């Protein structure tokens, strides 16, 4: 694995949480590297720190110690403004519980990241492009008919596909999925995994967290997390 191919890298990452009077060490010097175009699944028991790791990789959380690099840049040295931009442009999140905004339509939820990074004037300049792009994504994911619906009018699988479309809106270089099928039945979950596989085939780098080995098997690489470290 050459340095140029690595999109995401973490070295000696530590993270602990306070639970009452005790401090729980979740990550204990974790090292990880993800190649560009890879579809990696991080598996581990419940409470092993999978989601924590994913949040740290996506700059939603900070490690207590250690380095996380994205395309060679240390996220720990980035300003708040740069991290916001990183989350907006470089990475897309897919959550287990979809986390769509109920007040917005499906289409608005999808183009939300494009709106979030622009001023009012900037938004009016690119509004047409953003709506077209969101429409295309929904069509690719089989949700063209649902564009004007509200999230609560959709099934779980449809909501997760909307969440994937939202994550892809700004063409991020990295897709982080936290138990994307965890709240879905087997058939619907397989449909979501098909979507992720297709995206990966098209060149999208994906890091997925799951506790289910069978789901992890759909990824090209399985990373096992145990006792706060990667188990090789």
């Amino acid at each position, binding site marked *: 694995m050459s340095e140029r191919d690595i999109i995401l890298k973490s070295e000696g990452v530590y993270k602990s949480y306070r639970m009452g009077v005790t401090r729980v060490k979740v990550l204990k010097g974790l090292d990880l590297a993800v190649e560009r175009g890879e579809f990696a699944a991080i598996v581990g028991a419940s409470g092993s720190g999978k989601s924590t790791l994913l949040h740290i990789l996506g700059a*939603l959380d900070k490690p207590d110690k250690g380095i996380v690099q994205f395309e060679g840049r240390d996220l720990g040295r980035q300003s708040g403004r740069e991290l*916001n931009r990183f*989350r907006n442009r470089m990475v897309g999140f897919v*959550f287990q*519980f979809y*986390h769509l905004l*109920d007040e917005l339509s499906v289409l608005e939820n999808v183009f*939300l990241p494009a709106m*979030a990074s622009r*001023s009012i004037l900037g938004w009016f300049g690119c509004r047409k492009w953003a709506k077209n792009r969101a429409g295309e994504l929904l069509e690719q994911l089989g949700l063209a008919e649902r564009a004007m619906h509200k999230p609560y009018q959709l099934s779980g699988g449809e909501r997760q596909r909307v969440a994937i479309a939202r994550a892809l809106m700004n063409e991020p270089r990295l897709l982080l999925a936290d138990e994307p099928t965890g709240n879905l039945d087997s058939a619907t979950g397989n449909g979501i995994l098909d979507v992720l596989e297709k995206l990966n085939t098209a060149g999208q780098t994906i890091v997925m967290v799951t506790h289910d080995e069978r789901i992890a098997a759909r990824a090209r690489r399985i990373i096992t997390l145990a006792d706060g470290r990667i188990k090789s």
Partner: protein
Amino acid sequence: MYKIILAMRYLLRRRITYFAVLAVALCVFIVVVVMTVMTGLVDDFKQKNHDFVGDCVVGSESLVGFAYYEDFVKELEGAEFVEAVSEVIKGYALLSPRGRDVNRGVEIMGIDPVRHSRATGFASTLYYRKDDVSRAFEPSYDPNLPGCVLGIDLASQRDANSHYSYQASPSRVGFAVTFFPLTARGALAGAGAGLVNTKTFYYSDLSQSGLARVDSSLVYLPFKEAQLLCGMAGPVKRVNAIHIKFKPAVGLKAGCDAVALLWNKFKEQKAGENQAYLLDTVTVQSWKSYRRMLIAAMEKEQTMMTVMFGFVGIVTVFIVLVVFYMLINHKSKDIGVLRSIGASAADIIGLFCGFAFLVGLIGSLIGLLGGWLFLLRINRLEDWLFEHFGYQVWDRTMFAIGDIPSQVSPRVLAVIAFSAIAACLIGALVPSWQAIRLKPVETLQVNQL
């Protein structure tokens, strides 16, 4: 842009925000109505005092008055900034209708009606001679008799609707007016001889200034007669006050300062005269200062009302704070989602402040509109309440108030709306601050759902 869209959707889709809007609207409504009525009353009261006094008064609190006024009046009339000047005799007297053994103490003002009308709003207070003020002291039933103008409450009584009853022309009624003339040293003129000056004046007109105390106790008399009867028409004539009106372009303070300057020079010139000591009691005051005892009380009430309604504003802040606190707790997941797609802390504050702005703006607009509509009908409403239930906001038999003031001031409305929006923003600030302190990871956890 998403902040505006989300703020509007939160507003439309969250019922709890309707309560915040309603709270703001109610507060704005109450403040608009009370402040408009209060401001109207105070402004009206000030205007009536201004009309009664003119712009500036050079006068003495002493009943003795001051001498050499004619020279100073000439100086004033020659000054560029002065529009009109009126010399006035002020004093107290006993008034008794002829043929009856009753009397009452009254204030008297001796004026030249034409000169006084130029310097003050006297002419507009008259009922019969409004259009020919020079004949204010000519009883219509016999122009040769000496006339007097009575404060309206001395001659007529208001009904419960604040209306006076007028006759087509003044009826022939004579009043014996008894004066207590004073010497320049302040002694009773003719003391020891038991002399008081009494003369009969005939009712020639009514004066309604709208100032309760003036209308209930003041009698206007012809200047020369009043001067004579008050003992001020000796070899060195005296008056109690000179009322001055400035030219329209002259500011009140500038005008009063200029008069004070003239007066000081005049006083120096007269320093060697016999009755120069009387000039030391004279002050130059603007109408506001001259009537400050009365105006200050009203202004104090207005300030107290403003402070009280400041507390209403604090209640608004608290209501908005509670609503936003609940909303943000409910919407913590949205905050996590927004942070995950790159929204900054400032964006989150912007979102909730935008939301607060909308709550304040819509609440204010509803409150202003409601207040305006209510004020448009406030007098009709009061009439209806009086007709059906006998209720009046102010008992018109006691208070010299005609209609309840309902003239909405755009400046007052703007201040109220601005304050309401500011109150909402303040109310939203603490919960917004709390929102940005939430860690996205915590808000996105399953147990937050």
